[in-house]
Structures are given as C-alpha cells and as structure tokens.
C-alpha cells in the first residue's frame, strides 16, 4: 500500500497529525502515512493541487479558495472533519499602542481603541498575518471593521511566516501580528510583544484548522479515508486532554522543533491568553462556517459575487463522512449551536 502523503506546517495545531503518526494510532489502524512538513501554505496548496499530497492540515479559507479555483484551476477537495478551534493570538509589539487593552473581555472596545491608534499613526502600521487566505486575516478584518475601521486603509497587512513573526516584531518591521500558537506566547515570553487578545474573543470557538483531502484520492481510497478519520479522532481525544498536554508539547518540540514552553501554554490546560481546542466540537466541519468564510472573502473582493457558494461549499464540506468513523470509535459530538463572530 502506498503511504498516504499528508502535508502540515510547523504549528501547535498540527498536533493531531503528529500524535496519530508518532504514537501509533495510524499504525494500529493499518495505515501507512508519510507526513510532509512544509515551510509554507502555498507549498501545501500547490502540492494538493498537483497530486503531490493526498491530504493536509489546512486553513478553511485556503481550502475553499482551492475549491473555488482562486489559485488556478479548481482543486476538488473534501473537508470531512475539523481538527481544531481557536488558538490564534493578536499581538502588539512592546511599547506599541500602550493605551490599547482588552479589559473585561470587551473585544469591541479593544478593537475601537486599536482602530483609533492605527488612524493616529503617521503611516498605516504594518500588521502581519500568516497568509492572505487565513482565518487570522478574515477574523482580524472582521473585528476591525466591526470596530469602525477600514482594514484596507487603516493598516498595511503583510504576510509573514508564523515562525518569523517574533523576529519581524523584534526588528521593528511589524507593529503587530495575528498568528497561530505558539508564536503569540513566544513573543510575550521573550518580551518582544504582548498578547492583546485571542481570536476566540472575536469568534468564540471558531474553526481553525481542518483536514482537507484530495477528492480524487478520497474516491479511490474510501477505506483508507475512513481509517484516517478514525486515527485523527483518537489523536483528537488525546490532544484535547489537559493531562496529556505536557507530553504533546514535548512531542511537538521534538518533531516540529517548536518552542516547548510556549507550546504548552497554548494547549488545553495551559495558561496562555488563547488556547487551542481539540476534539469534540472541533471535529465538526460545518458548511455554515465555510459559508461564513466564503462570504467574508466576497466582502473583501477576493471571491466574485457571482460564485455559487452553496454548490461549492456543499461539495467540499462533508461532515457526513465523519459519522461512521465517530460511531466506530464510540464517540459522539455533543450538539452545539453554531457560534458566530461578535
């Protein structure tokens, strides 16, 4: 059996893949998996598009962009499950905008204060996100717009790889960033910046990473897909357990080279401002969440208004594929009202 090639980035929320591989869950299920740690989202997207990867940990907006054909010919993908919720931090550089705080968890007030500060600067300050088509970028823009700002004018959005944001902030190239764990906590630990708030303050329990599978691979290997989902369910249970967090952090440090202490802070039970949630509700790939991301992309002019959202979301987001894997694992997802950004 040829190994399943799965792409991922060096981020804490790649944990379910790494755990399933390194702690034998894939092996138990008879799966041979080859993890491909990529340096960029573009690499993951290109390799999925041209069949060099069968699946990947992916950002939902990027998965949708591939399905809609925003990066060339549409790449048919399936998203059968989510992998994580939340976990991203909005961070401001040390000594920057000291009056901008997040008292009492009022995200709107914090956003208004930030917009006020942005507009008071001589030039639009640079805030970094990890990719244009990311949850980070869309949530940041939603938040600033709700607070009365104009995300295209009040700031200059730049894209910096997650592992370079701390250095970019230290060297003064950016005034702030929105990036995934462990980089927010790492910036704070190193005294380079402070975490203003987590993206969960903007959209509680928002979907963060999903599993995206090449549709062609999925239709050729339905049993392998089923086993893959089961393996990730097992890993999700473990990653979601605060008692396992120290072990998981050590594993991520060893396999992905992430800073262990900062990673530990962002895992369940950690003391970071923002924590990643794995398992349970994170597993649901909700079409209505995908529609929110697609509409947001339309709002900013990245996706044409004539695009058929229902059709593309419907063919891409396939939570039904998870049902039999859940029952085989004896798991249930407690039904939860879909949350929305504030």
């Amino acid at each position, binding site marked *: 059996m040829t190994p399943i090639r799965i792409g991922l980035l060096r981020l804490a929320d790649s944990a379910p893949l790494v755990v399933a591989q390194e702690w034998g869950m894939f092996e138990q299920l008879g799966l041979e998996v080859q993890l491909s740690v990529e*340096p*960029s*989202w*573009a*690499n993951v997207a*290109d*390799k999925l*598009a*041209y*069949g*060099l990867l069968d699946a990947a940990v992916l950002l939902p907006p990027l998965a949708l962009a591939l399905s809609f054909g*925003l*990066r*060339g*010919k549409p790449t048919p993908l399936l998203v059968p499950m989510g992998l994580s919720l939340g976990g991203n931090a909005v961070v401001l550089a040390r000594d920057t905008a000291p009056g901008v705080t997040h008292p009492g968890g009022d995200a709107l007030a914090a956003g208004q204060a930030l917009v006020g500060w942005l507009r008071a600067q001589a030039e639009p300050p640079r805030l970094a996100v*990890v*990719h*244009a*088509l990311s949850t980070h970028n869309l949530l940041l823009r939603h938040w600033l717009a709700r607070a009365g700002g104009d995300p*295209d*004018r009040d700031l*200059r959005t*730049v*894209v*910096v*790889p997650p*592992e*370079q944001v701390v250095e*970019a902030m230290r060297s003064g*190239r950016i005034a702030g960033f929105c990036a995934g764990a462990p980089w927010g906590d790492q910036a704070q630990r190193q005294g380079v910046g402070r975490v203003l708030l987590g993206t969960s303050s903007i959209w509680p329990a928002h979907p963060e990473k999903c599993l995206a599978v090449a549709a062609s691979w999925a239709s050729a290997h339905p049993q392998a897909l089923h086993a893959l989902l089961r393996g990730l369910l097992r890993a999700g249970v473990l990653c979601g357990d605060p008692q396992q967090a120290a072990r998981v952090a050590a594993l991520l440090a060893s396999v992905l080279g992430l800073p262990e202490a900062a990673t530990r802070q962002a895992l369940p039970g950690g003391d970071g401002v923002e924590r990643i949630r794995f398992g349970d509700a994170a597993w649901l790939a909700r079409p209505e969440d995908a529609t929110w991301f697609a509409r947001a992309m339309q709002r*900013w*002019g*990245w996706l044409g208004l004539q695009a058929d959202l229902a059709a593309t979301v419907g063919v891409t987001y396939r939570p039904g594929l998870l049902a039999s894997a859940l029952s085989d694992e004896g798991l249930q997802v407690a039904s939860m009202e879909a949350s929305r950004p504030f």
Partner: protein
Amino acid sequence: MNVLLADDEPERARDLARLLATDPAINVVRVRAGQLLADAVAAQAPEVVIVDMARPDRDALEAVRQVSSFHPRPIVLFVDEDDPAFMEAAIGAGVSSYNVAGAALSDVKPILRAAVALFRQHQQTRLDLRQSERRLRERIAIERAKAMLIRERRMTEPEAHRLLQRRAMASGQRIAEVADALLRAGDGAKA
C-alpha cells in the same frame, strides 16, 4: 523585464541569475538576505518572481488579485492550467513562480522553464553527490569488514570477500549491508 529571484542557495541563485542574464531583455535582481519578500517586490516592481519553494516567505506573494493603494501592480501565482505536467515538474524541482497580473504566458513561461531546468540540475548534482558519498561509505565498510575477517579469522582477502558475497546471496542483502552487520556485531564475535 525585471525578474526578482528569491533563492537562499547561493550557488544555485548565482547560476540562475547568470543564466537569465544571458538574455539582454532580462534584468535579474536578487532578494537581499533578511529582506522581506513583499518589500523586495514593492521596491523592484518585477514582472516575474522566481521563489525557491523551501522558503517560508513565499506566502507573502499569495495576495489575492486585489488592486488597492498598496498593490498597484498585483503579483499573482503563475499557473499554466493547460500544462499540468509542467506545473508538476516545477513543483518537483522546488521552484514556484509569480508574475504581474496580466503578463503574457509566452513571456513568463520560458523564464520559469529555465529556472526549473537549473533547479533540477542542482537537485541532480546533490543527489549524485549523496550517492557518491554513500558509495564511498559502503566501500569503506566493506574494506573494514574484510580486514576484520582477515585479522579475526585468519582469512585471505579472497576468502573474506567470498564470505561476504555468500552471506549477501543467502540473506538477499547487499554486500555493504552484510559488512555493516558484521562490523556492528563487533570484534571477536563469531557472527
């Protein structure tokens, strides 16, 4: 035509810059060490950008097709939808390419072709080098194993060689693997 080159491998970058510069119509500029890719694009206004796929900062060029005050000439990912084999070859070689929106395929593709060919060449050289190094290591292991047999079991060189060969055939392994196993079993052990 301005071509911006983002490649951290100094020899390869130098070779590609030289290759492209043979075309008088092309002006090659290289991204400086530590310079943000997006800043280099803004400063140089290239028609084409060649980026080493091993670089994490290629995501900086994924900006969607938007024209705003900050992106007067948006750079977009190069995609030849009619030539997936070529796209696959480029990815296999580790080259990604971007061009200013609206640039003609016929202007951009030859540059990318040259980059893919050159990256492939370097990839092959690296593979050849690794293979040579491996062969050398194996030769050394075989010679050491034979020396051990000669010393420990008072064999002649041809006898030692035949032992390794026989064992390789019997176990379906290569002679080098048999030699490694013998050396691992240690001096004095009657393996």
